[in-house]
């Protein structure tokens, strides 16, 4: 008996070790790609395999990063864009969820609105940019509106679909207790759709970045989108690439935060 236990112990340890080995293997190659990418880029630029004026180089970007960080302008640009994106993203998600609630609450309204939702969803929202700028002025608000508009319709559609797909038997349970429509919504429809709402958050992170950056292309005097446009106009591609890398970094961080919230909120399912 004891021997058997020992044997299982050994097997278990071996299994755990193999899991760790696999993980290390994956991590190693991820790191390798990262290092190789930047090393190759640096080398390509250094030995003029590519035009350094166009593609810059990691070392030049790094130097610019340090410089911009020191004079404080980078922090300002980044925080402006981050603020706009977070706001656009939160507004888009909230508005979309509210619209989905309206559609659920008034089934006839949803039938009437259906073709218009399809059209709005199919239309490229960034094309609304000029109109938004004229309507709201070339400022913060039109950029935030871009970040919102780009995600609100898809959120509405996805969340509304999930509202409708809630198992009717949960509603039946509530109805047998005489629940009102509001109680059905609060006790079953909304909590059952929570995972969907959170996963639209993940999509909206990406969309809001698109909206905000395009918005900044069009109007702003500040922000990472502005840095890109400015760098492009004065042909300073180191600045463009620096902005790109920062956007990639911030978007990833935002995504990870949402993923973390998702894990916390829906651990019980």
């Amino acid at each position, binding site marked *: 008996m004891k021997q058997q236990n020992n044997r299982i112990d050994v097997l278990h340890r071996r299994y755990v070790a193999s899991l760790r080995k696999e993980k290390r293997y994956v991590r190693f190659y991820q790191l390798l790609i990262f290092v190789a990418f930047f090393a190759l880029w640096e080398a390509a630029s250094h030995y003029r395999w590519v035009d350094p004026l166009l593609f810059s180089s990691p070392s030049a970007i790094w130097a610019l990063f340090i410089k911009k960080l020191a004079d404080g302008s980078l922090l300002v640009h980044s925080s402006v864009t981050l603020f706009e994106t977070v706001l656009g993203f939160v507004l888009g998600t909230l508005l979309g969820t509210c619209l989905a609630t309206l559609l659920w609450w008034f089934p006839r309204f949803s039938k009437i609105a259906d073709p218009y939702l399809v059209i709005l969803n199919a239309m490229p929202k960034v094309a609304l940019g000029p109109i938004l700028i004229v309507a709201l002025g070339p400022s913060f608000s039109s950029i935030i509106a871009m970040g919102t508009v780009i995600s609100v319709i898809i959120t509405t559609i996805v969340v509304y679909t999930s509202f409708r797909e809630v*198992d009717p*038997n*949960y509603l*039946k*349970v*509530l*109805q*047998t*207790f*005489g*629940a009102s429509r509001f*109680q059905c919504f609060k*006790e*079953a429809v909304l*909590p*059952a759709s*929570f995972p969907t709402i959170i996963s639209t958050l993940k999509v909206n992170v990406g969309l809001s970045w698109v909206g905000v950056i395009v918005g900044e292309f069009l109007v702003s005097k500040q922000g990472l989108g502005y840095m890109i446009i400015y760098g492009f106009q004065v042909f300073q591609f180191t600045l463009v690439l620096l902005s790109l890398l920062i956007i990639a970094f911030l978007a990833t961080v935002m995504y990870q935060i949402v993923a973390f919230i998702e894990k916390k909120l829906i651990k*019980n*399912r």
Partner: protein
Amino acid sequence: MMSFLVVHRISHTYFTEKTAITALDNVSLSIEKGEFVSFLGPSGCGKTTLLSIIASLIQPTEGTVMLEGEKIHSIHPSVGYMLQQDYLFPWKTIQENLFLGLKIMGIDTAERRKNALSLLERIGLQGTEHYYPQQLSGGMRQRAALVRTLATDPKILLLDEPFSALDYQTKLKLEELVWQTLKDYGKTALLVTHDIGEAIAMSDRIFLFSAKPGRLVRTFLVPGELRQLSPLDARKHPLFSELFQFLWKELDSLETAK
């Protein structure tokens, strides 16, 4: 004196764009207080439709339902309903699930909460209050669902094949438990089932339905000897298999008659 629950000339037709399917055709029956009755029949006989009508979840095309002499039009607090599966809300703890009915009905008092928890204990689930449903087995969850239904203290329980999703052993145990609990609390119960054995073991009377359209064909009174016994003991009684054979033939003849 009028019966506890009276179903009077109920007919129900489901309409779609292309079809009009009559699920129930002129069904009348009455149930006395404290009785345990079963609706037995093949699938498509409208027994679940009738249950939903009694619960006022759907309005019948024709006919009326009366509870204690009063017509019921909308969801009635005296009627409790139990579904085929537990449908405990996975994002709520067992305790929150139990109090759900109280909360919805606006009768969420400390005393009723205490009752619900003591009922949970009685039914053998003490200590699970703060668990989430998925931490319990299927049988335990269905028991918790029973407590949720009983927590609002309904006078009549409508059971819509509540044991059909469970494995056989759990099912037998749960039949026993539900039967005992309902007897102890003097509840009237109405069980929908297609399981002949379950109908005999648990009920005082059995209503036999035919399908397409759903009609009440016959009513069987379960012999007194069996009624006295709990479901498990009833299944062992010689009369049980006799009645089983008899009902089997009846159901069979209904199907071949079509």
